[in-house]
């Protein structure tokens, strides 16, 4: 029997029962689509996390007070805050770094008739490069403004859009807490990150925030950026030994501060999303398996229902292996069709979701090949048993079957 004839016999049988064939295939379609979509979405999420962490600033170290247990869910205990002398010390003692102090708070901000509670960050000009958040237009702080703690501010795009409503922000005076504050610059757009609008922010000289908004001379975080790639580890250990000295931590004692690398955070988050991807993929693979059982079920029913047809085929000269091939190919064709449709749906669904969620669309040829081959394999495995049952029928009994 010619290979093409086996294929055409099988497709004829499938076409004769369109609705049933579709329903049979549906299990595979859903299985493949969910496997492909889940793994792709997981990879997109990983990519989006790493991209966002890169956008925070590369070679970036966070120096924070408190004791840290390593890991994504770090526990922090309270400890004495830093002040600007610590910042100066790091600038002075550690080579090849850019240092930006930061003191975060929130304040009631009034622009004309609009008012909202906005995160305010006291910092220095280094913040713009260390945190990779450059100005869109306007200017940075002048050194006089920084040393005197002048009430000037640089605002994020969201404020321009939502509070200035098309008016020119540069040179305007806004109210931040109880301070009148002149806008000197506008930050470039950063978009949303982990549920936070990073453009809804106000930068002020750190001394202005310390005196006018917080009333303390604290620095809550020190951002340190290593200027040369691959030196973050050295910078980190230098900062650690410097701060141990300044904060009088005994050798062997527990640090009351910690230095955290963005790379570490990225790796921790990446391993989390990877675990999630594997988990979701595994759940989806179970649905593919269930789809395969669906095929087997329908094929078994189909063999019983078509017993007489099988008898006719045997009587006119089909060998057992011809019948086996026909039914096996039928199930492979069904599962392959399901695989193709599922693949298209999975990729399409991923594209739609990543577009809606504003994530990068990652296309992985590997997972597409794996998903598709898996669906074909399911056709072979789950089609074999019903096909063998058909091939083993006795022609006389099969012909008598009502």
């Amino acid at each position, binding site marked *: *029997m*010619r290979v093409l*004839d086996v294929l055409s*016999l099988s497709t*004829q049988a499938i076409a*004769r029962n369109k609705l049933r064939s579709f329903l049979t295939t549906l299990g595979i379609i859903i299985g493949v689509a969910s496997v492909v979509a889940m793994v792709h979405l997981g990879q997109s999420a990983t990519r989006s996390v790493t991209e966002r962490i890169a956008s925070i600033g590369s070679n970036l170290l966070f120096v924070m007070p408190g004791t840290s247990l390593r890991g994504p869910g770090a526990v922090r205990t309270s400890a004495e805050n830093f002040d600007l002398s610590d910042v100066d010390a790091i600038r002075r003692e550690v080579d090849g770094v850019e240092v930006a102090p930061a003191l975060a708070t929130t304040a009631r901000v009034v622009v004309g008739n609009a008012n909202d509670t906005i995160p305010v960050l006291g910092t220095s000009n280094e913040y713009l490069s260390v945190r990779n958040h450059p100005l869109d237009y306007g200017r940075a702080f002048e050194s006089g403004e920084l040393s005197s703690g002048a009430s000037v501010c640089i605002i994020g795009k969201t404020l321009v859009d939502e509070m200035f409503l098309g008016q020119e922000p540069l040179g305007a005076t806004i109210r931040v807490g109880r301070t009148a504050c002149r806008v000197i610059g506008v930050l470039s757009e950063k978009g949303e990150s982990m549920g936070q609008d990073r453009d809804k922010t106000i930068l002020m000289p750190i001394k202005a925030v310390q005196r006018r908004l917080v009333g303390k001379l604290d620095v809550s975080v020190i951002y340190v950026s290593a200027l040369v790639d691959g030196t973050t580890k050295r910078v980190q250990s230098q900062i650690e030994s410097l701060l141990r000295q300044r904060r009088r931590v005994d050798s062997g004692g527990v640090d009351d501060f910690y230095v955290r690398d963005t790379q570490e955070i990225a790796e921790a988050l990446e391993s989390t999303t990877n675990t999630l991807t594997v988990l979701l993929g595994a759940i989806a693979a179970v649905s593919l398996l269930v789809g395969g059982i669906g095929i087997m079920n329908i094929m078994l029913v189909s063999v019983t229902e078509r017993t*007489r*047809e099988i*008898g*006719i*085929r*045997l*009587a*006119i*000269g*089909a*060998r*057992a*292996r*011809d019948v086996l091939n026909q039914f096996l190919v039928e199930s492979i064709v069904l599962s392959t069709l399901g695989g193709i449709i599922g693949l298209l749906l999975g990729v399409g669904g991923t594209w739609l979701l990543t577009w809606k969620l504003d994530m990068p669309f990652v296309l992985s040829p590997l997972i597409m090949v794996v998903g598709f081959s898996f669906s074909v394999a399911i056709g072979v495995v789950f089609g074999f048993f019903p096909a063998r049952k058909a091939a083993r029928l006795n*022609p*006389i009994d099969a*012909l008598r079957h009502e």
Partner: protein
Amino acid sequence: MSDGYGEVRESGVPPTIVELCDVYKIYGRGATEVRALDGVSLTIRAGEFVAIMGPSGSGKSTCMNIIGCLDSPSAGQYIFSGVDVGTLGRDERALVRRHFMGFVFQSYNLLPRTSALSNVELPLVYEGVRPALRHRRAVSALAAVGLADRQAATSAELSGGQQQRVAIARALVTEPPVLLADEPTGNLDTVMAREVMTQLTDVRRERGVTIVMVTHEPDIARYADRVLLFTDGKLVRDGTPAEVLA
């Protein structure tokens, strides 16, 4: 059409094509043992038209299934065209059926929702004949049974007599030397039955094909030139219709 057997027939006695020697077909064991065939010996010559008759349970269908290589005997020898086919395995018997046997059944047994032409082409598909040639042969086989204009019709669109003629076309499209008919008129009224029997006698005359037909209707058996009468798994009478049915 040259059939090879015609020349022999003209020169004298046609060769034996079917030879059963002391054939048994036994189902079950011990107390529940059923002897569907109980020591049957018979020979059929090429080109003969043989009717097998007998009450139900007499073993006539079992006998035809064995002659048609659908079944194998429990004991005894079946020589087909000089070859012992009684001991062949499943797939070998399938090949004998494919190349040497054509089947016509009481309930036509056409594939449902399939055109007459595709039904007739089916045996050629298993033979591995190329599609173009397959199509030509199926068209001419349908034309031979007078259904040239019903190629695209499915069995639901054909009368019983027409369906049985499609089945005859399907049985003969591979040009087998033997045609086996199991109650071919059992589901047909007398008009259509006569139509089908005429068809069978025509193909026999034109092609010299050997026909073995199971029937329980004496009127139908009279179309044959020899009648075998079975009772309780034994061949009890063998002769012309006039002798056996008298």
